[in-house]
C-alpha cells in the first residue's frame, strides 16, 4: 500500500507582506519552510511506514524551488518525492490545486502502488483555506477525515481506519473503510528530526518533476484558468500601535499598578 503525503512550501513568517498592486503575497526575500501542519502529516505517514512497511510518496505542487521542500521529505525517509511543477499550474486556487494533486495521486495509484491513504495538513499557514485536502478527497472519491489528532487503529486486513478528530471542545472517534484522505492537526505527533546520512543522501537525490505533459490535464481545469476563485483584495487589518507603559525594569511594581489601572479603566479586567 502507498501512503501519499501532500506538502506545501510556505513563506516562513507571520509578517507576510502583501503587494498592494497585485494583491498577492510578496515572496521575495522570505525564507520558505514546509507548511508546519504538513510536517505532522509526513511524520504520521513515516510512522505507518515504520510500523507496517508501507511505502510513502510526498507530493508538492509549486515552483521549481519547491524542490527544497521535497528534499526535506526525502531526508526524513519518504520513498518517492514528486514535484508537480508547470507554468500552466500557476495561479491556481484550491479547486485547481486539488485537480492537479488528485491527478498525480491517481497516476501513482495506477502506475506505482495502490494508494490507501492520503495525508494532508489541516490547512496551510499562508492560504489558510483548509480546502485542498477535502478537494482531493472528493476528486478521488476517497472518504475524508479532517482534523485528525490521533489514529486510533489502522486495520490493514479489514482495510479500515479509526481516528480521533479534534473538534471544538470535544473529540470524535470515527471509522471509515480505506482508501481515505486525512487532514491532520499538530497534536497528532512530534515530527522526527532528520539524520545526517539521510540529509546527505537527500541532497544528492533527484526529485521527480511532473509537468502537465505528464499529467495531461485539461488546461481549463488547472492553474489560473481552472480557478473560479478570484482574489479582489488582500490587506493587513490596521491595528492600533501598542504603547509602552512606565518603566518595568526600573520600577516593576509601579508599572504593574499602572497596567492594572489601565486594564480596569478600559474594562478589560474586572476585580
Amino acid at each position, binding site marked *: 500500500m502507498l501512503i501519499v503525503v501532500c506538502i506545501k512550501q510556505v513563506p*516562513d*513568517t*507571520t*509578517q507576510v507582506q502583501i503587494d498592494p498592486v497585485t494583491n498577492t503575497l510578496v515572496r521575495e526575500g522570505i*525564507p520558505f519552510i514546509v507548511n508546519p501542519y504538513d510536517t505532522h502529516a509526513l511524520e504520521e505517514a513515516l510512522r505507518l511506514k515504520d510500523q507496517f512497511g508501507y511505502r510513502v510518496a510526498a507530493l508538492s505542487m509549486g515552483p521549481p524551488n519547491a524542490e527544497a521542500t521535497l528534499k526535506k521529505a526525502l531526508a526524513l525517509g519518504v520513498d518517492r518525492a514528486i514535484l508537480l511543477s508547470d507554468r500552466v499550474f500557476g495561479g491556481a486556487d484550491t479547486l485547481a490545486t486539488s485537480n492537479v494533486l488528485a491527478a498525480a495521486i491517481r497516476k501513482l495509484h495506477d502506475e506505482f502502488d495502490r494508494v490507501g491513504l492520503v495525508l494532508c495538513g489541516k490547512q496551510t499557514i499562508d492560504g489558510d483555506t483548509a480546502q485542498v485536502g477535502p478537494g482531493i478527497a472528493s476528486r478521488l472519491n476517497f472518504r475524508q477525515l479532517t482534523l485528525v489528532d490521533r489514529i486510533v487503529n489502522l486495520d490493514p486486513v479489514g482495510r479500515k481506519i479509526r481516528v480521533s478528530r479534534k473538534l471544538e471542545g470535544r473529540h470524535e472517534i470515527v471509522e471509515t473503510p480505506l482508501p481515505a484522505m486525512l487532514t491532520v492537526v499538530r497534536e497528532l505527533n*512530534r515530527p522526527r*528530526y*532528520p539524520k*545526517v546520512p539521510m540529509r*546527505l543522501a537527500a541532497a544528492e537525490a533527484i526529485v521527480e518533476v511532473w509537468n502537465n505533459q505528464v499529467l495531461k490535464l485539461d488546461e481549463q481545469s488547472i492553474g489560473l484558468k481552472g480557478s473560479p476563485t478570484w482574489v479582489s483584495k488582500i490587506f493587513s487589518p490596521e491595528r492600533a500601535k501598542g504603547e509602552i507603559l512606565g518603566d518595568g525594569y526600573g520600577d516593576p511594581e509601579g508599572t504593574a499598578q499602572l497596567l492594572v489601572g489601565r486594564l480596569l479603566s478600559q474594562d478589560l479586567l474586572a476585580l
Partner: protein
Amino acid sequence: MTPNPTIFTPLLIVSLGIFAWGCWRRLNLVALGASENRFDSFGRRMGEMLLYAFGQKRVLASPFGINHFVIFWSFLILLIANTEFMLHGVFPFISLENLPASLYLPLLLVLDIISLLALAAVGIAAVRRIAAPPYPEARTMEAFFILGLIAVLMLAYFSINGSRIAHGEMTAALPWLPVSGRVASFIPSASAPSFYAIGWWTHAVVLLLFMNYLPYSKHLHILTAIPNCFFRRLEQPNTQPREEFTSGNEFGVARVDRFSWKDLLDSLSCTECGRCQNACPAGITGKPLNPRGIMHEIKVNLLENGPLLKRGEKPVRPLIGEGEGSCPEGAIWSCTTCGACMGVCPVFIEHVPKIVQMRRNLVEEEARFPEELLNLFENMEGRSNPWGIAPTERAKWSATLEVKPFDRETTEYLFYVGCAGSFDSRNKHVTVALAQLMDRAGISWGILGKDEKCCGDSVRRLGNEFVFDRMARENVALFRERGVTKVITQCPHCFSTLKNDYRQYGLELEVIHHSELLRNLVRDGRLALDTSAAAFGATVFHDSCYLGRHNDVYDAPREVIQAGTGTAPVEMGRNRDNAFCCGAGGGRMWMEEHAGTRINLARVEEALQQKPDTICVSCPYCMTMFEDGLKDVKAENVRVRDVAEILAEAALR
C-alpha cells in the same frame, strides 16, 4: 648473604615477559583510535611534561597533592634501588656497593630516607582513603591492595638492609642508614640470615607482583600519565574538531575505535583521583554525569571491545548505553561543557570533546536527543536564533539609538550583538548600555542588523555539527564579504566561537569581549567616570566559563567593576579557573534540568554567602540563570548586572 639467581632469574624473566605482554596488550589498543597530530612543538611538549608530570603542578594544586608528589618522586628515586635489586638478583656481583663510597654512601642515605617517606605517604594515603576519601567509591580493594604492596616493599627494603647490618655487613655504611640501622637493632644477629631471606624474597615477589598487577589496574597511569601530559592539547580545549559532511561518512562516536588515539590514551591514563567529579557542576547537583565515570566506561569498553575490533570482529558492548563499559545518554546530555573537569585533571584528560563526540552520534546518526532540543535545532536552522524569532527583529534593540550598519570603509569594529543581546528583553538592556558606552568613548562601530546570524555555539556543543557547519560557513562567508576583521561581542559564547571555532574555517578575527574592550577604554581614560553615586553596594563577580576557563579572561571584568563601583569585586569561594558554571553552557540553556537540584540555584546560593547587593556577570546566559535563580530563592533585594551596566552607571551619568 647473597640472593639465589637460579630461582630468581627464571622468575624475573617470566615476570618481565608477562609484564611486557600485559602492557603491550593494553597499550596497543590505543592504536585502534583515529589519527590525530599531537607530535608538533616537541620542545614545548617536553616542557609541559616536565612541569605537569614530573613537577606534578596540577597534582599539587589540591591540598592532598603533596602526598602523591612524595609517592611519585619516591617511586622514581627508588627505581634506582629496584633496578639494582633485580640485576643483583640475577648477577650477584652487580651492586651499588661497587660505586665509589663518596657516591654510594650518600645514595644509601637518600634511599633510606625516601623509603621511610614513601612508607609514611602510603600510610597517610590509606588513612585518608578510609577517613576522608576524595569520593565515597574511592575506598576500593584495588587502592588498598596497591598501597599495601608499596608499604610491604618499603618494609622489606628495611628488612634486607637491617638484617645485613645485624649480620655485621655494611658497617662502613651504618651512619648513612638511619632507618635501616634502627631496624637492625631489632634483629638478633643469629636470625639475620633468615630475616634477610624473608625480606629479600618478600621484596622480590611483591615487586614482581606489583609490576604484573600494574597493567590491569588504575595504576596503569604510572606508564600512561607521563606521555599523556606530553601529548596534551597545547591550546585550551575550548572547541571540538570539524566533521566532513560527505556521503558514506559516519558522524560522531558510538564505537570506541572512532575516538582518536589520544582519546583512548586518556581513558588509560585516568587515575580515578576524582578531581573532575568534585568540580563537575552537573555531578555535584545530582545529574547522572560523572566525568571520571565517562573515562572509566570508555576504558572498560576499550578493553572489552578493543581486542575484538583488532580482529575485525563486531564489538559486544555499546559505547553509548547502560551498564559498565557504556556511557549513559543521561550523562552525555548533562554536560554544560564548562570545562571544570579538564581544568583540574592532573594528566590533561579531555572529557568534554568526547562527550560532544558522543552527542554528535546521538544527534546526527540517531536523531535521538532530549525533546526540548527539537525546537532549538529547527529554530537555529530555520531562523538562526534559538527562539525562532523572525530575523528581521534582530536590530529592534537599537530603536531608541542611532546605530550605524557595519561598513568596512566607515566603521572600525563590528559589534556582533548575538542572539541574547538582540532578542532577550533583559539582555537588550546590556546591549544598549554597551552601545552607549562605545559611543561615549568614541569607538567607531557598526552592526550587521538583520543580516547578523547566530554564531552556532549551542548547536555545536550539543553535537549538531551538521547545522553548526552550515551556520559557521554562512557566517565566515558573510564576515569575509563584509570585510570584518575586528569584532566586539557581549557574549562569551559568541566570543569563543568566533575566536576559536571559526579559526577551523580559516577565519582569523580579532575578537574582543566587551569586558576587555571596556577595560581598555577605562585604562586609556576614554570614559569619564564618576563613582560618587555608585549604588551597587557589595558586588560579587561570577566568572563565565567561556570567558574565564575557556579563554583565560579573568582580570578584565574585575577591572571594569573596580572602575564602575570604585571598589574591587567580592570573590566567591570558587572563582576564576575554579569558578562554578551557572548551568547554561553546552546548550543546557535550552534544556530542562530533570534530575537533582538546579545548577543555577547552587551558584546563586554560593554568591549569596558573600552577602552581595549586586551580582555581576559578563555573559547573557549567566544573566538569565542568576535572574531566574534569585527569583527562585526570593532574594529580591539582590540585583544582577552585566559589567557594561555597572560601568554605564559611572560613565553615562
